[in-house]
C-alpha cells in the first residue's frame, strides 16, 4: 500500500488521476490516521461517514474524467468554521452541541472544488490563545516532542489544524488567523501556514472573534499545496461587506516564479527582540538562500511595531466582547436555568466560557466603557494607523518582509498557562500583520537544538500573496525541511 501520509496534495492528485489508488483508499487511510492519532486530541468531531460517502462520489468523478481541482482531498477544518449539519463548537462549552444550519463560504468553496471533510479540528476556545490549551475539549499535543521527550504545544489557536497536518491526518487543513493563529502553530509544527490579505476570503460563516482582524487560511505540508487551497478558498462574497472584489490571481503559478531581483526587507527592529539563538541562525541562513537565488536583502525599519501587541490586546478583546455577546443562553445550546433573565445570562456566560475568554471579554468591555474609550480603544486604533503606515512605507522599498514567525519554538505543555501576559508575547511577530491586514505566511526551515521545527515568516504587501508564495517556494527548496515527526502516538 502507498504511504499516503508523505504525499502532498499536488502529488496525491497526480496519483489519483493516474489511478495509482482510489479516493476511497486515500480517505480510508486518513480516517485510520485520524483514529490512530486520537491521543493528539486534534479532532473534536470526526466525520468518517461523511468522508466515506463523499469518497465514492469522487471516485466516480475521476473515472468519468470530471474531477474538480481538489477532488477527493480529505481536509480537516478548524471548529471555527460553520459546517452545515456538522457540530461546530468554537471549542467552547457555550457551543458544545451547536449544529449550524448553514455552511461557511470558504468551506463551501472547498466542497465545490471536490474536497472532503474529514473532521472538525480543535482550537483555543473562540480562537483565543496561542497554545491550544484553552479549548473546552482539552489541549492538543504537538506531534513534535522536544529532545527531553516532553510534550509540547502545537501553538494556537489553530493548534488542531497544524497538529493534524503534521501528523498526517488529512492532507491539509483550514485555520483562522486573528493575531497569528495560523502562522504560529504552523511554525510550531513544521507546516506551511498562510494568512491571506484581509478581505481575500469571506468571513461569512466563520465564528467571529475579532471581526476587523479575522481571516481564514490554509495549513499545508508544502508551499504549492498552500497555493492550491488558496485558489479554492478565496472568493468575492456579497454576503460579507469586507470581502474584496479584487481579481484573484492563480496562486499556484506564483510558486514557480523566480525570485531573482526581488527585494527582501529585514526589519532592524527584529534584532532587538529577544529571539532565540536557533531562530537567529535560521534568519541568517534564510538571507543566504535568498541572496543565492538572486534576491536582494534590504534593511528596513518598522518603528512602531513594538506597540503592535498592546494595541492588539485592546482591539481584539474589544471586538470580541461585542461579538460574543450573542452567547446569552437564548439561542444556542448552552444555558444555565435561572428564575430571572439577568441571572440566566450571568450564570450561562460564567459557566459557558472558559477563563481566557472571560478575561478577554472583560478587557474588551473595559476598554470600550465610558470614560476609557478614548484612552484605550481610540488610542489603539490610532496606533494601528501608525503601524499600517510603517508597512506602507516599507513596501515602497521591498517586495516581501522576512523574519521569524515566533520568538521561540514550541514550548512545553503547561509552561505558559499560568501567565496570560507571557502567553500574549508569543504573538509579537505575527500580530502587526493582522493590524495592517496584510498577507503573511510561515514556512518551515529546519529544526532547532531541541529537535523542534522552526518557521520563518514572510509578509507581503496588501493583496500580494503572490510574492510571498514565490519567496516561500524558494526557501522551501533551499531548506529541504522534512516534515516527519517520530510517530510516538501510534502504539503498536
Amino acid at each position, binding site marked *: 500500500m502507498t504511504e499516503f501520509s508523505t504525499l502532498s496534495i499536488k502529488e496525491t492528485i497526480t496519483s489519483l488521476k493516474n489511478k495509482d489508488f482510489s479516493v476511497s483508499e486515500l480517505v480510508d487511510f486518513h480516517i485510520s490516521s485520524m483514529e490512530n492519532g486520537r491521543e493528539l486530541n486534534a479532532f473534536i468531531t470526526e466525520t468518517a461517514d461523511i468522508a466515506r460517502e463523499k469518497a465514492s462520489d469522487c471516485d466516480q468523478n475521476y473515472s468519468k474524467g470530471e474531477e474538480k481541482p481538489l477532488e477527493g482531498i480529505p481536509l480537516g477544518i478548524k471548529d471555527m*468554521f*460553520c459546517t452545515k449539519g456538522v457540530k*461546530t463548537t*468554537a471549542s467552547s462549552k457555550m*457551543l458544545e452541541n*451547536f449544529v*449550524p*444550519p*448553514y455552511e*461557511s463560504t470558504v468551506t463551501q468553496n472547498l466542497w465545490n472544488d471536490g474536497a472532503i471533510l474529514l473532521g472538525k479540528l480543535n482550537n483555543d476556545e473562540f480562537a483565543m490563545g496561542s497554545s491550544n490549551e484553552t479549548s473546552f475539549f482539552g489541549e492538543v499535543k504537538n506531534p513534535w516532542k522536544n529532545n527531553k521527550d516532553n510534550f509540547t504545544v502545537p501553538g494556537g489557536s489553530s493548534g488542531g489544524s497544524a497538529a493534524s497536518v503534521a501528523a498526517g491526518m488529512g492532507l491539509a487543513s483550514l485555520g483562522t488567523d486573528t493575531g497569528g493563529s495560523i502562522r504560529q502553530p504552523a511554525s510550531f509544527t513544521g507546516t506551511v501556514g498562510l494568512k491571506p490579505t484581509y478581505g481575500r476570503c469571506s*468571513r*461569512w*460563516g*466563520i*465564528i*467571529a472573534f*475579532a*471581526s*476587523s482582524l479575522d481571516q481564514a487560511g490554509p495549513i499545508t505540508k508544502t508551499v504549492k499545496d498552500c497555493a492550491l487551497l488558496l485558489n479554492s478558498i478565496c472568493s468575492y462574497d*456579497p*454576503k*460579507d*461587506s*469586507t470581502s474584496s472584489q479584487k481579481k484573484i490571481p492563480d496562486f499556484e503559478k506564483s510558486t514557480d516564479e523566480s525570485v531573482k531581483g526581488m527585494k527582501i526587507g529585514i526589519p532592524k527592529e527584529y534584532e532587538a527582540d529577544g529571539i532565540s539563538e536557533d531562530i537567529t541562525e535560521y534568519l541568517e541562513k534564510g538571507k543566504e538562500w535568498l541572496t543565492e537565488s538572486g534576491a536582494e536583502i534590504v534593511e528596513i525599519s518598522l518603528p512602531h511595531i513594538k506597540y503592535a501587541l498592546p494595541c492588539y490586546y485592546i482591539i481584539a478583546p*474589544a*471586538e470580541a*466582547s*461585542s461579538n*460574543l*455577546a*450573542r*452567547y*446569552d443562553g*437564548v*439561542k*444556542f445550546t448552552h444555558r444555565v436555568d435561572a428564575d430571572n*433573565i439577568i441571572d440566566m*445570562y450571568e450564570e450561562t456566560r460564567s459557566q459557558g466560557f472558559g477563563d481566557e475568554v472571560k478575561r478577554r471579554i472583560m478587557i474588551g*468591555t473595559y476598554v*470600550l*466603557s*465610558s470614560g476609557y*474609550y478614548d484612552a484605550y*480603544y481610540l488610542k489603539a486604533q490610532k496606533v494601528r494607523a501608525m503601524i499600517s503606515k510603517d508597512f506602507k512605507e516599507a513596501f515602497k522599498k521591498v517586495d516581501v518582509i522576512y523574519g521569524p514567525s515566533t520568538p521561540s519554538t514550541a514550548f512545553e505543555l503547561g509552561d505558559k498557562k499560568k501567565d496570560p501576559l507571557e502567553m500574549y508575547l508569543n504573538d509579537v511577530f505575527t500580530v502587526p500583520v493582522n493590524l495592517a491586514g496584510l498577507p503573511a505566511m510561515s514556512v518551515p526551515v529546519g529544526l532547532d537544538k531541541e529537535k523542534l521545527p522552526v518557521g520563518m515568516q514572510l509578509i507581503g504587501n496588501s493583496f500580494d500573496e503572490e510574492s510571498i508564495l514565490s519567496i516561500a517556494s524558494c526557501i522551501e527548496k533551499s531548506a529541504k525541511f522534512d516534515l516527519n515527526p517520530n510517530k510516538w502516538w501510534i502504539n503498536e
Partner: protein
Amino acid sequence: MNNLIKGETGDWEVVIGIEVHAQIVSNSKLFSSASTKFGGEHNTQVSFVDAGMPGMLPVINWVCVEQAIRTGLGLNAKINNYSIFDRKNYFYPDLPQGYQISQFKQPIVGEGSVTIDIDDKKSKTIRIERLHLEQDAGKSLHDQHPEFSFVDLNRSGVALMEIVSMPDISSADEAQSYIKKLRSIMRYLGTCDGNMEEGSLRADINVSVRKPGDELGTRCEIKNVNSIKFIGQAIDYEARRQIELIEDSKIIDQETRLFDPKKGETRSMRSKEEAHDYRYFPDPDLLPLSFSENIIEEIKSELPELPDDKKERFQKEYSLSPYDSNILVSEIEIADFFEAVTKGRDPKIAANWITGEFFAAMNKLGFNIVDSPITIDNLSKLIKLIEENIISKRIAKDVFEIMLENNEDPEEIVEREGLKQVSNSGELEKIIDNIIANNPDQVEAVKLKPKLIGWFVGQVMKETNGKANPKLVNDLLNDKLN
C-alpha cells in the same frame, strides 16, 4: 398663546424633546433580505443574520439608505455623505446579536427642522438635531406563559430612522402637532407609513419643567409612547408630577419611565441598578456609509411637494383659507383627493364639502379617505350641481346621503327624485303673490321689522319642498315687500 402651567408657587414652563423611531418603508430589512411585512407568523421573517447566528454578517440595504436621505431632505436637514455604523452593546432577550447596529458619532443626517402650526396665524419651528439609521429589535411576549417570555424575531433587523428633536417643544399640544407633522412629511415622502398601532412610529419623550427663564430642569424620558393621544396625556401627567415634586421640595430622578394608558400615568420603568453603558464602537463588519453628492441631488430632484409647500400653493391657487388648506394638506391622500374633486369646480365649495359633510360622514362610518364609498367623480358631480345652482345646499345634503349608500351618480338622483332647484321666476312669483295675498298681517309686520322676511322665505320653501332657489326667492320678496 401661553403654555405655562400654574403651580402653587407660580407659573411653570414645560420643556420637551422627542426621539421618534420611524420604521422605514422597505421590502427587506436593513442588513438582511428577510421580509419586513407586518403581522407574519412569528419567527418566519427571520434570516440567520437577524437571529444573530454565529458567523453571520450584515450587508446594507440601499433602499433604506435612500429613504433616510429622502426623509432628511424632507426635514430640511444636512445629509452627511459619509457616516458610520456603530454597535450599541446591551443585553436583552429580543436583541439577538447582543448589540444593536446604530449610528452614534456620525449619523447619516444632521441638523434640520419641522414647522408646526400654533394657530391660524402663528407657526413654530422645531429644530431637529439628527436622524440616524438603526435596526429594530425583536418582540417579547409576556402573556403566553406564567414563567417564560416568548421571543419573536420577525421585527429583528427591520430598518428604523431615529429622529431626534431639540428641546424646542413647550406643550402637549405642540408635541402632538410635531408628531402629526413629522408623520405627514414621512407619509408624503413614502418613507414611513406612520402606523402607530402597528408600531411603525414610536416616540420617546423627554420632559422637564422649569420656572420661566431658569436653567433646564432634570428630565425624565418616557419610552415608547405609541399614540398621539397618549403622547398628550403622558406629557400632561409627567409635567404635573414633576411640578408637584419640586413644589414639595422633592428631587426629580433622571430616569426612564413608562406610560400606562389604562391609568393615564407614567411610572418608573425599573429601579435603576446601574447607568447604561452602551460601549459604542464602529461596527467592524460594515464599511463607512458613503455616497456621492450627485446621489443626494438626484433624490432631491425626485422629492414630492411637501405639506408646507402644498399648503402655500392651495392658498394661492385655490384662494383657500389657511385653516382649510391645513386640513387638506395634512394627509397626502386628502390633498390628492381634494385636487381631483376640485378639478374644473369651485375650490371653495369643494373644500367646504370635503372638510365638512364628507369628513363627518367618513368619520361616522369609520371609513378612510382611500376607501371612500363615494368616488371622486361623483363627488365632483355633486359639487357641480351645487355650483350651477341646479340643487340647493340643503337638497345637496339629501343627495349626498343617498350617494353614501351606493355611490349613485348625483345627477341621476336629482333627476329621479325631481330635486332640481326651482329657478323659474315666473313660477316663484306666482307662489309669492299667493302668500302675500293670504297673509296681510305679516305683510304689515315686515314693513316695521325687515328681518321678518325670513318667514316669507320659509313659506316659499315649504310650498316648493325646499327646491326654490333661495337667492331668487330673496330677491323677489325684497322687490315685492319693500
